[in-house]
């Protein structure tokens, strides 16, 4: 019944990508976008989505050059082996760092909202253990988990926000297009951090059963995420107003608190949004551990990826134990995004495409 050839369908890849991106970034997204773009935050997110689509196009075009080769082999083939290994190690380090910081953020929020007395190490270790176990089972297992988790997260989430629509003041989205273009651009740049994780496309592309369909599938996924982000940001701003959204650390969490569920059988809905966050954090840590181990395996060319997962686990755990508050962790995530993130999402694919053009390299079909 299951092929166990480590290949996944485009649908599964889309579900994985959406889960990887839908994390801590989305909870703070309305605040970041509204801080600069005000009530036009939805426009800033639309601009960020367009930039993300362009980035996906670049990455998948680079991936099409040698669609069956792994990421490290692709870079090595075009730019030389030492560069390929260096980029592989750097990306692996970046993913592990992201994992650690996301875990830190997750642990902090969990401590403040639900489990104040539970040691952070317990929360962190439990999440790493379960994510590592899932990652050790291979990409197909991850894909099937994503197919199960996707409706579990998005259907109730969407339902809650549609309910929230009945008690919002849509005039809070006025006046439209009144924000200055420079502030819109700044808002778009800050909103772009919500798309952190897109660089995984380059590593994941060789796992697709139809590698030449990856571009279309990933663009669809990014557009879906963008529309979803615009929807929840608009509802949140309509509820609180742009000024109040800017003041809240986690506007989405506060939004959930104010929604009245029909039947009123659940008094506090924060537990629901936290369950979404737990699942999406699992997806992020799981993908970080999996892809880091795959990259390290490709760099060294030895051993199985499970061995490298075992090596990465204490690194992520140690990184997450650094004492950072939510604000500091958020700043570090942004810093890493604006440097390494953009480097891997835009600059590296552009360099690979340029190198391929200069050397007239690449798979013949990839050039079509």
């Amino acid at each position: 019944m299951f092929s166990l050839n480590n290949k996944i369908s485009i649908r599964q890849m889309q579900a994985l990508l959406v889960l990887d991106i839908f994390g801590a970034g989305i909870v703070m997204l309305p605040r970041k976008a509204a801080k600069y773009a005000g009530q036009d935050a939805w426009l800033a997110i639309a601009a960020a989505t367009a930039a993300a689509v362009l980035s996906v196009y670049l990455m998948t075009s680079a991936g099409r050059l040698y669609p069956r080769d792994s990421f490290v082999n692709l870079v090595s083939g075009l730019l030389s082996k030492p560069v390929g290994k260096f980029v592989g190690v750097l990306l692996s380090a970046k993913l592990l760092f992201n994992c650690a910081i996301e875990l830190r953020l997750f642990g902090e929020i969990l401590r403040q909202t639900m489990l104040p007395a539970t040691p952070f190490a317990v929360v962190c270790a439990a999440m790493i253990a379960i994510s590592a176990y899932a990652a050790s089972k291979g990409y197909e297992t991850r894909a099937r988990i994503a197919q199960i988790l996707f409706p579990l997260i998005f259907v109730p989430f969407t339902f809650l926000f549609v309910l929230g629509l009945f008690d919002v003041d849509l005039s809070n989205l006025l006046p439209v297009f009144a924000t200055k273009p420079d502030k819109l651009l700044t808002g778009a740049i800050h909103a772009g951090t919500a798309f952190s994780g897109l660089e995984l496309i380059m590593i994941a592309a060789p796992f697709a059963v139809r590698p030449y369909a990856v571009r279309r599938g990933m663009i669809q996924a990014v557009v879906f995420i963008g529309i979803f982000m615009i929807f929840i940001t608009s509802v949140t701003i309509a509820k609180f107003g742009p000024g109040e959204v800017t003041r809240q650390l986690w506007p989405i969490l506060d939004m959930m608190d104010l929604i009245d569920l029909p039947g009123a059988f659940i008094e506090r809905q924060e537990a629901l949004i936290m369950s979404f966050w737990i699942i999406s954090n699992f997806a992020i840590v799981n993908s970080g551990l999996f892809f880091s181990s795959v990259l390290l395996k490709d760099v060294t060319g030895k051993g199985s990826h499970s061995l490298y997962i075992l090596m990465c686990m204490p690194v992520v755990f140690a990184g997450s134990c650094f004492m950072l508050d939510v604000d500091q962790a958020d700043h570090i995530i942004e810093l890493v995004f604006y440097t390494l993130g953009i480097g891997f999402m835009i600059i590296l694919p552009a360099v690979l495409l340029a190198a391929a053009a200069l050397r007239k390299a690449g798979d013949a079909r990839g050039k079509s």
Partner: protein
Amino acid sequence: MGNHRRSRRLLPVALACLLSTGCWDKVEIENRGFIISLGIDKYDSNKKSSRAEEEYNRYTVSAALPSVTDMKESAVSDKSKDVKSADNSTISGCIQLMDAASSQKLYLGQVKLLVLGKGLLSDENLFRQAVDAMERDRDISRKLFLLSTKERAEDILRLNIPGEPMLGLFVENYYKNSGGAGFYGFYKVLEKSISDLRSTGCTLIPEIEAEETDKAEGIRFGGCAVIKDCKLAGWLDDPETRGYAWVMGNCRNSSVTVVYNNMYIPIKVLKSRPRITFSLKNGKLECLIRVNVSGAVKEYDFTAAGLNNPSNLKAYQTAFEQAVSKEIGQTADRVQSEINADIYNFKDLLRKKNYQLFLTYGEDWERHYCEMEIIPQVKVDIISIGTIK
């Protein structure tokens, strides 16, 4: 070999279950003290206290909890509550003292109602810190109802209303049934009040007062406290509160009584939709408030003959229009000239509806608001006079 593999697979599952039991944060439900209502007052310095820290006391916080020991007969019994109170220099200090005096772990996650006493409302610093404390505590829901009182909040919490549940539950049910219905159904949740205070520094907090008769205690809703720059600036009575509610579109199911031809005719509001526009007239800012009201006549003089006459019906409609206009106008006049508070948040509305005017007048808004001419324009449509129209 198979058993060994199976136990290896089960080990992570078992570990995950073990670690997810919430060992550190579990609280048995009977050990939780669910606070339903909170009351905050300014500390009464005339109170005698045995504590050495008395001179530093600034707040009295009261909390009403369901009494587990008394709840034998019914959960809705008015006797099934305990009211605890504590004095301290801070809100969190008061809550800690109450916690220390209780065998249960007090939990603020189910608070439905917050009552603020007049003394607290009149003190800007105390009020600011109280609002901040409520906002910062993530346990406290932002959709709890906010009420003000001219007396002490603690006294309101201690009221026993015969046949009704404890006050927080009573208020929650009351507003769910009658919320938005004019002056008595006008309600404010914590989130909205905080948002208003940050936006214009002004908000209204509905009023609750004790009403004692020979037979029993009771409560009365109506009127509201006007807060300006985080300090009590005045009180609005029932008609003035409804004058505000007309502008906010919160008068559905309200009942307006008009005297016409020596008859008292109540009309039940079925729909009330305001439309507010801003414009410049002779260099002066003008705010036009158009309110379209649809209503049904609830009582007449048992003949209905007058109501079948179109010209009479038109006259009644005109009388209602004048009554509603008068309420809106009187409230606007009072808050502009006497209290000087933008309770309607017209500043934000101007920004949304006419951004160009906002750029000109938004800067020195307090002055422009007081000089702005507010013109109510009401249209009443009586769509039902009884069984047949």
